[in-house]
């Protein structure tokens, strides 16, 4: 079942007197529980697409449907609400809130809206996440006391705090050395299989896309490859043909 649906999406940025066509018409779907990697060279439109899936930007043309909602028809307030309810984010440069400690950073998204969880349930859940990302001993530390890898782990826990259906990670490993980057992707994969959360991450490094079970390759704002792989396998999923322009 598709949780994300892009239908002939175009994005044009004004740039001085001209415009930049960042995305030139892409269509694809993401299924619930997917571990999707968007790969492509710099400037190919990865961030632009992730931003549109993340409801922090809307398409110039075409439709982006997230959890059944057409984002082009929502105002800022509704988009914000949708982000809070359905989405979680992991950023290239971690973007933790410097004045909050690890626990508070993870807790932060939960405090932004009405929560169905009781206080006790909430702290149990946050502690579970912190344990799951391996930072049990760092709960009271501020972000500037952590290494890059640790910060990104906090960011993963934070992205999962509201139990979102989709977590978006725009180049989550770009600021990390390759070994740490791998462990981060592995951690994301672990959370993906444990919590059945849909993960979408982007990279321009083909070495870390191995774990993905759905790969979309971009070039100049267009999809050049869209493949599914069976979980655990490493061959292409025969049920879905690669899309070649």
């Amino acid at each position, binding site marked *: 079942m598709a949780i994300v649906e892009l239908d002939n999406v175009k994005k044009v940025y004004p740039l001085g007197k001209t415009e930049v066509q960042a995305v030139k018409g892409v269509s694809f779907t993401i299924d619930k529980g997917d571990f999707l990697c968007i790969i492509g060279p710099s400037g190919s439109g990865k961030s632009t697409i992730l931003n549109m899936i993340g409801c922090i930007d809307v398409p110039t043309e075409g439709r982006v449907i997230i959890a059944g909602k057409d984002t082009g028809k929502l105002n800022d307030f509704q988009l914000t609400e949708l982000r809070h309810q359905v*989405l979680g984010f992991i950023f290239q440069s971690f973007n933790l809130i410097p004045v909050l400690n690890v626990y508070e950073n993870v807790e932060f998204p939960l*405090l932004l809206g009405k929560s169905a969880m009781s206080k006790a349930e909430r702290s149990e859940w946050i502690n579970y996440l912190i344990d799951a990302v391996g930072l049990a001993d760092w709960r009271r530390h501020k972000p500037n006391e952590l290494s890059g890898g640790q910060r990104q782990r906090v960011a993963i826990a934070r992205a999962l705090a509201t139990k979102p259906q989709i977590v978006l990670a725009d180049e989550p490993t770009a600021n990390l050395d390759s070994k740490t980057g791998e462990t981060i992707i592995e951690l994301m994969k672990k959370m993906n299989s444990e919590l059945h959360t849909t993960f979408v991450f982007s990279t321009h490094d083909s070495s870390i896309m191995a774990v993905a079970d759905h790969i979309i390759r971009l070039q100049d704002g267009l999809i050049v490859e869209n493949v599914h792989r069976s979980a655990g396998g490493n061959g292409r999923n025969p049920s879905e043909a690669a899309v070649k322009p």
Partner: protein
Amino acid sequence: MKPIVRIAFRNTQRQRKRSFLLGGAIAFGVLVITIINAFTAGMIVNVKNNFSFIAGGHIFISGKELSDSGRVITAINDTAIVDESLKLVEPFVKKVNKRSSSLAQLIFGSWETNHTIEGVDWQKEEELAAKLVITDGSLEGLAKPNAMVLPKPIARRLGVVAGETILARLSTITGQQNVGEFYVTAIVEDQTNFGATSAYVHLDYLNDLLSLNSGSYQMILLFLHDMATMDQVSNVIYGYLKEHAEVDPRVQLDLYMGSNKKEDAEKEEEIYEAERKVMAQIFGGGYMNDEEPWEGTKFAVMTLNDFMQPVMAMVGILNTVALVVFLILLVIIMVGITNTFRMILIERTREIGTMRSFGMQQKDVRNIFLWEAVFIGLGGALSGLFLAWVIMTVVGFIKLDGYPVLQFFMNNGHFTFLIQPASVIMNLLILLVMTLFAAYMPARAAARLRPADALRAHY
């Protein structure tokens, strides 16, 4: 604490130096205005107190009568009406004093001068004795029935020193000339500083010289438990007297706050006249006016507030200057706050994008900024108040002697500070509103950042 409030509070501590400078500037503004307001409020009370001891009370009721020959006699013979009116306000009145006064010609050797002599019941008015600043002699001589306390300027004019005897020529209430001999027991500072301090003598001795009927008096002076009730109490007395006898119009009510607005020059003239009249009635001095003839005793009711006008005007100016300084400081601080928050906006752009992407609404982003401004403003204001309190306490301990003019504004040589909660709250409100106003534009700009753009920012 709500998360945005917590974040705002912690944000104040990110750039401690910057918050400290802003808070410090706010503290300074609050300090200045608080001290000046408290100082002037304390000064008013001190001046009123000091004045009340010299004048003999808070509320003054005097009476004048027309003799058969058409002379105006200062005396209250119709004491029953006064007694009745006083019954109405009994619970408010602490003490009732009686005084007489007369403009006399004081003679010493070949020197002479005109000045007001006031008859005082020294037994009852021990506060007056306590307030006098003696420069020569002592009050021990008050044991003599004809003792006199002379203000310094008069003593100098006559060339008299304590222990000598002078003559006073005055006219009795019926118009006869009379001469009395007075023993100068002490010479005192003229604390009113405008020659209004009378020469004080024993009430009985002066009444004899004036040939006042026994039982009648010239003026009755009331000390109240609470000075704040001065206007109400005097209104009740005045209302009663007006119903039952002739009265003079009241200075304060009819002129200063009069509903019939006269042309400025005319009004000023009238106020000046009225002031002279009040002074004349309190301190004697033979003020003659051209009024219609009347029957019986014509009463005049005055309060300390009636001649506080010059002091109030001065205090008003001081407070206005303080407010202007405060506002100018605030404007400078506001510019500082606006600039600081613009800087903060740039510094935290990506952080704002992050918070927005996790579902923080625009108004919460704005509120984080506003709360941060509130915390800085409040922190500054509270430290300013605390510092003001410390300074006022320390200054309050200092005792200044030997400045007779200053003494009039002080309480036994101490400056008094009276913190007025209403004006403190008012100033804090002004401060808060202006702080929020200054932070509002950057806060709104922060709220309106598009999340995608904010996340792309380099900070």
